[in-house]
């Protein structure tokens, strides 16, 4: 029964009835609570009902409320015996339980159905956000000085939230310093480093300029380390392992390669710069130089200087004239004209000179070019001559030898032949030796090569295996992570579930109950069979008794006619039979009576559980109150 009560109480709470925490069974329900919860249930079942949710003080009003509740419950189709105002006002536990069971079954099911649907993570998140937002919206506004750094804590539901934007900050990190190499005790730190770590290094909370940067800085330092490690790992896996070098070697090579690359780049760039911009830069430089030179020279002597300088000079002169005119200190006209003429002459003279100089220069240039061309030609000629001289020298030496040999031709030929033969023989022996050496060497070489290739292939295989293992490792790690996430989600879902009815417990209980019932049924069946067999036995015994009696009766009766003593015996037999019959009757009667007694006892128990006495007291009290009310009303009426 407790289980049922708990379920009922839980479902009543879930529809919003105000039941205190320590109420666990229906026995603890007071009359007011019963009326309130029944009214609430009826309202939930059919929302258009108009029912008071609490018991009114007046007796007659109470009566009406109870009657209307009974009516509504009966309208819903309750068929559990007679139902009236007394059921609610003067309740007994079993009836109330029946009514509540009926009402809970009738409750609408949508809410429970939606809760049963499996929820995705996004829906959960959305819901969580919505509840959080509604919580925040329902909170009243508080001024900023009441919130420490914008954080406001609340008690129901417990938690905190950040309000306002004044305390937001950037996630800003600065480099932090931590002792390096202290974990490995086998490597000794230098003394000065150790003393720095122990006495000088500030705490990490003091290393940042602003205290709130501490957490970001530490996080950043950690992630940086992790990222570096990961990058190195992937590089080592993808490239490093295949190169079959040690880690230090690999790092060193990479460093060298990078340095070389950078050097090449820089060299290339600088060369290109020289080639591309070199001449123009030179030109610029020359121009600047000439202009400076010209200015300097024009200051000293006006007869020399480039045209550019002169035009510039002219412009300046004009400007000067203008300024002079503006200043009002105008020089005499004739001198100006004179100057103009002079200048013109000068320009003409200079131009001629320039022409002359340039033509000279061109001529000289041409000559230089001619000279260089002829020099090149001469060089080539010398080269060819040298070559031919060398050839001729070689030819000469050969010819000289042959000529030396000519006088004793025969002997020399023989000698030469001998030399040729011996050298040929030596060649042959050498070839043989070479062969004899070569054979084992080649053999060895082949063997080594084979061994090498085998090793190579083995290494390849091992590498492949390592790669496969690594991939599998990663996969399994991923899977583990995924599973963990799933588990987390499921756990959260499970937590949410347990807040509802703990289903599994209930189903287990139900199954147990069903099993119990089955067992009981089996036992009942067994007892029935037993009873039947006993009945049968009784029947057969009584039949046997009857038959024996008639037989005996006949026998004794026959003898009784002849013998007097037997007559007596017959009479005794009849008396015995009668007596036993009456005995059996009495036994049966006793059985019936005991059964009746048991029935009555049960009835008494059930009646006593209905709290009749207390209810009677309550009823009499209520009657008294009603009488009082009535008399009061009558007095009022009379008073009017």
């Amino acid at each position, binding site marked *: 029964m407790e289980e049922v009560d708990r379920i009922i109480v839980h479902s009543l709470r879930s529809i919003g009835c105000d039941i205190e925490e320590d109420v666990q069974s229906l026995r603890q329900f007071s009359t007011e609570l019963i009326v309130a919860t029944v009214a609430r249930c009826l309202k939930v079942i059919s929302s258009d009902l108009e029912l008071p949710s609490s018991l009114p003080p007046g007796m007659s009003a109470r009566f009406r409320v109870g009657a209307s509740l009974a009516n509504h419950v009966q309208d819903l189709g309750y068929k559990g015996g007679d139902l009236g105002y007394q059921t609610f006002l003067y309740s007994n536990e079993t009836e109330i339980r029946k009514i509540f069971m009926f009402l809970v079954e009738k409750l609408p099911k949508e809410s429970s159905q939606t809760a049963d649907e499996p929820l995705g993570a996004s829906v959960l998140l959305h819901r969580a*956000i919505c509840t959080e937002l509604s919580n925040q919206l329902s909170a009243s506004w508080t001024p900023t000085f009441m919130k420490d750094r914008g954080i406001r804590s609340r008690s129901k539901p417990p938690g905190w939230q950040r309000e306002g934007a004044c305390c937001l900050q950037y*996630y800003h990190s600065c480099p932090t310093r931590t002792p*390096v190499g202290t974990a490995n005790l086998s490597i000794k730190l230098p003394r000065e480093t150790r003393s720095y770590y122990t006495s*000088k290094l500030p705490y990490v909370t003091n290393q940042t300029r602003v205290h709130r940067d501490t957490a970001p800085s530490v996080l950043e330092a950690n992630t940086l380390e992790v990222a570096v490690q990961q990058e190195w790992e992937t590089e080592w896996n993808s490239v490093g392992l295949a190169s079959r070098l040690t880690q230090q070697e690999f790092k060193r090579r990479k460093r060298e390669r990078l340095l070389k690359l950078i050097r090449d780049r820089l060299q290339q760039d600088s060369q290109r710069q020289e080639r591309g911009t070199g001449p123009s830069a030179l030109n610029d430089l020359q121009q600047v130089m000439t202009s400076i030179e010209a200015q300097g020279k024009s200051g000293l002597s006006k007869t020399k200087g480039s045209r550019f300088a002169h035009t510039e000079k002219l412009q300046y002169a004009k400007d000067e004239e203008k300024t002079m005119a503006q200043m009002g200190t105008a020089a005499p006209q004739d001198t100006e004209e004179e100057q103009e003429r002079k200048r013109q002459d000068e320009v003409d003279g200079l131009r001629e000179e320039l022409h002359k100089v340039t033509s000279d220069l061109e001529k000289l240039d041409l000559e230089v070019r001619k000279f260089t061309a002829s020099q090149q030609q001469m060089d080539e000629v010398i080269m060819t001559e040298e070559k031919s001289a060398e050839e001729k020298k070689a030819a000469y030496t050969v010819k000289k030898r042959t000529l030396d040999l000519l006088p004793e031709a025969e002997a020399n030929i023989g000698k030469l032949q001998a030399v040729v033969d011996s050298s040929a023989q030596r060649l042959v022996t050498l070839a043989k030796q070479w062969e004899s050496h070569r054979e084992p060497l080649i053999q060895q070489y082949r063997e080594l090569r084979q061994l090498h290739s085998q090793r190579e292939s083995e290494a390849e295989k091992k590498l492949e295996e390592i790669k496969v293992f690594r991939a599998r490792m990663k996969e399994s790690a991923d899977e583990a992570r995924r599973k963990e996430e799933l588990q987390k989600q499921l756990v959260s879902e499970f937590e949410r579930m347990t807040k509802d009815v703990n289903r599994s417990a209930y189903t287990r209980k139900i199954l147990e109950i069903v099993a119990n019932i089955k067992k009981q049924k089996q036992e009942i069946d067994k007892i029935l069979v037993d009873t039947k067999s006993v009945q049968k036995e009784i029947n057969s015994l009584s039949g046997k008794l009857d038959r024996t009696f008639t037989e005996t009766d006949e026998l004794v009766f026959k003898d009784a006619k002849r013998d007097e003593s037997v007559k007596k015996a017959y009479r005794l037999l009849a008396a015995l039979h009668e007596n036993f019959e009456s005995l059996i009757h009495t036994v049966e009667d006793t059985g019936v009576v005991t059964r009746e007694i048991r029935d009555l006892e049960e009835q008494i128990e059930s009646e006593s559980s209905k709290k009749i006495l207390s209810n009677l007291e309550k009823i009499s009290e209520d009657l008294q109150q009603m009488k009082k009310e009535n008399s009061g009303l009558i007095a009022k009426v009379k008073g009017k």
Partner: protein
Amino acid sequence: MADEKWESAFPVLCKTSSADIGNVCHAVAESFCQDDVISADAFLSTWTLEEWWQVRSVLTDIMRSAVGKGWSKEKISEELGSLDEPYKKVLIDVINVHEASLRKKLLLDTTAVSHAVLSDFDWKLQLAMSSDKLAQLQELLVQLDLDVREAGGDRKRVILEMDKSELGRLISSLEACGKSVQQMTTS
């Protein structure tokens, strides 16, 4: 030239005790590595503000050249010239302790030669639940703040707000950049 400057600063440096100079050097080295400014308050009892500036710049200079040119201990003590021995020793110790981080800082400064360099970033993930038109929007937005240091040393904050597709585009372009860098370093 540097030597003269250093030599002129040594008498000022010797105003403090050789025990305290360690603290000063550590502070200067740390501030140099962190790109941070140390407040002069702690040192104004020994030096005037101007002297402190001189000390700071000379110390930074010494560290920069000692680490940047890869001087050995002997070379450093030779370069320090007329400075007293205990001071020299302290300075050399400090440079030794901080060598790795100083080198890192110098390298960072050297690599950041482009006219604008990303110096810091921050990001935030936001969920737009609804808009003025739609009751249920559920759009994810990411806000990316980029701190850019420009050639003149000015800092500029670039703030980007992107939805999913824009973020994907940004990531793919960044990945392309990374790949080209990788190609350059590995090929």
